[in-house]
């Protein structure tokens, strides 16, 4: 029988035990008989290592209360000095007509392997968590370094660019007489490229800033925000026929400035890519599906080839010629970055010449 069995009298003294109890404890019956739960040689402890006083152990508790206890984990020291872990059950023996037991039967078996394995798992988990925390910290530091690097590089790039643009302008204006038409054209090319690089740098900075800023979450009236953004963008479509319809948009949880940027970029794109349309149509919609709000901006503009749908959100990815549609290709990258930070998703649907719809979700 694998289960050790010990019987203790009402006083707590051991009066009987089986061979399995001797084997598990590594002590002969002669050593154990007559001992109480308080016997110091057991050095009884709880799983967390704190002492397990005799009076609290299952057998004594049963004698005191008449209740039975099961699966109590206890650490004891065997006859050879090694510590083992046992799982203990205690059961009272009653004489008829008495409310308190005259004896208690305790059964137990060795669970050292299991306890040690659990301990090992716990130890490894702690170690793993510590390692994850360390790595996360290192990664965060690396990201911060990279971002501050890109930030300062962008700033440092502006000074030489300013010199290129400004001095070529001065050449153009103050030495016009000494330059022929071709020289003037070449200076214009230089300046056009300086301006383009300036835009790229500004956009890189905007992108870095979108990543660095901590979100300040608040309850946002998305519809009011969309109408505000449309008002701000209105000057860009003066002289064009554009009809914009804003559906009834729910309130969302997010960072007001960041979400405004998302709408500015998406609506700005919609205005831009409907430019060839005599009757541009733009729709802003949102609905709550499950535990998220799905927002969309649809236009009837030039659209895009569906196989490039995911590329659109990459940094400096452009699907159109710079001559047809201006821009550096950072706008949707910033949209994705902001939505990612909110814990949402972005995607796009479209087809060449039949408009595009951009979606983003926000967790509720």
């Amino acid at each position, binding site marked *: 029988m694998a289960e050790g069995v010990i019987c203790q009298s009402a006083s707590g003294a051991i009066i009987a035990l089986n061979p399995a109890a001797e084997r598990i404890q590594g002590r002969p019956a002669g050593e154990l008989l007559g001992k109480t739960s308080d016997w110091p040689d057991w050095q009884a402890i709880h799983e967390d290592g704190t002492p397990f006083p005799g009076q609290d152990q299952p057998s004594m508790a049963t004698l005191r209360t008449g209740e039975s206890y099961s699966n109590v984990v206890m650490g004891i020291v065997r006859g050879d000095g090694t510590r083992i872990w046992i799982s203990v059950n205690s059961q009272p023996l009653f004489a008829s007509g008495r409310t308190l037991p005259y004896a208690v039967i305790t059964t137990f078996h060795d669970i050292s392997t299991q306890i040690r394995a659990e301990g090992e798992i716990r130890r490894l988990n702690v170690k793993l968590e510590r390692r994850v925390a360390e790595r996360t910290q290192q990664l965060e530091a690396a990201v911060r370094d990279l971002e501050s690097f890109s*930030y300062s590089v962008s*700033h*440092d790039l*502006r*000074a030489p*660019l*300013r*010199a290129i*643009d*400004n*001095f*070529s*302008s*001065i050449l153009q204006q103050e030495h016009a007489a000494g330059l022929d038409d071709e020289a003037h054209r070449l200076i214009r090319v230089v*300046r056009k490229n*300086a*301006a383009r690089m*300036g835009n790229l*740098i500004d956009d890189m*900075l905007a992108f870095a800033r979108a990543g660095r800023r901590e979100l300040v979450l608040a309850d946002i009236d998305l519809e009011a925000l969309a109408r505000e953004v449309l008002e701000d963008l209105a000057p860009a479509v003066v002289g064009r026929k554009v009809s914009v319809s804003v559906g009834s948009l729910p309130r969302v949880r997010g960072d007001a400035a960041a979400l405004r940027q998302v709408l500015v970029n998406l609506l700005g794109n919609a205005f831009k890519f409907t430019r060839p349309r005599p009757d541009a149509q733009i729709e802003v919609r949102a609905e709550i599906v499950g535990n998220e709000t799905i927002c969309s901006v649809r236009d009837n503009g030039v659209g895009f080839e569906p196989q490039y749908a995911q590329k659109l959100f990459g940094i400096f990815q452009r699907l159109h010629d710079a001559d047809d549609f201006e821009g550096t290709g950072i706008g949707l990258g910033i949209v994705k970055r902001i939505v990612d930070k909110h814990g949402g998703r972005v995607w796009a649907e479209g087809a060449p010449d039949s408009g595009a719809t951009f979606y983003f979700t926000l967790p509720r």
Partner: protein
Amino acid sequence: MSDSGEVEILLVEDNADDAELTMRTLNKANLGNGIVWLKNGALALDFLFGRGAYAGRSTGERPRLVLLDLKLPKVSGLEVLQQIRGDARTANIPVVILSSSTQDRDILRSYDLGVNSYVSKPVQFEEFAKVVTQLGLYWLLINKAPQAS
């Protein structure tokens, strides 16, 4: 410098090209008389406090405007600003930061230290000229600064 030797603008700028562009623009707007250009923060402090390379210069002759870059060798723009504000002789000279940086913490720090204005240098020629001209006009012609005591 103007005929009277009065310093109108102290330009503290380590980038020679930026300094040339700034001075050129101010000259075009007829605001270029009396510009002193210094290439680092330490020299700027020597100049303002009449010591070191400028030992003996009277601190009573205060520039009417200090145009200060942030990233400067030796003593940074923010340190220069701090020392200007920390000394009664220079505390109320108008100081404008003219920097490439648009970083929020640079702007905040400058205002904390008592800058009068923070302007980021545009890259593009027309923009740069416009900003520097407006700056010069405003601080030298429109703004009323306290007289040196």
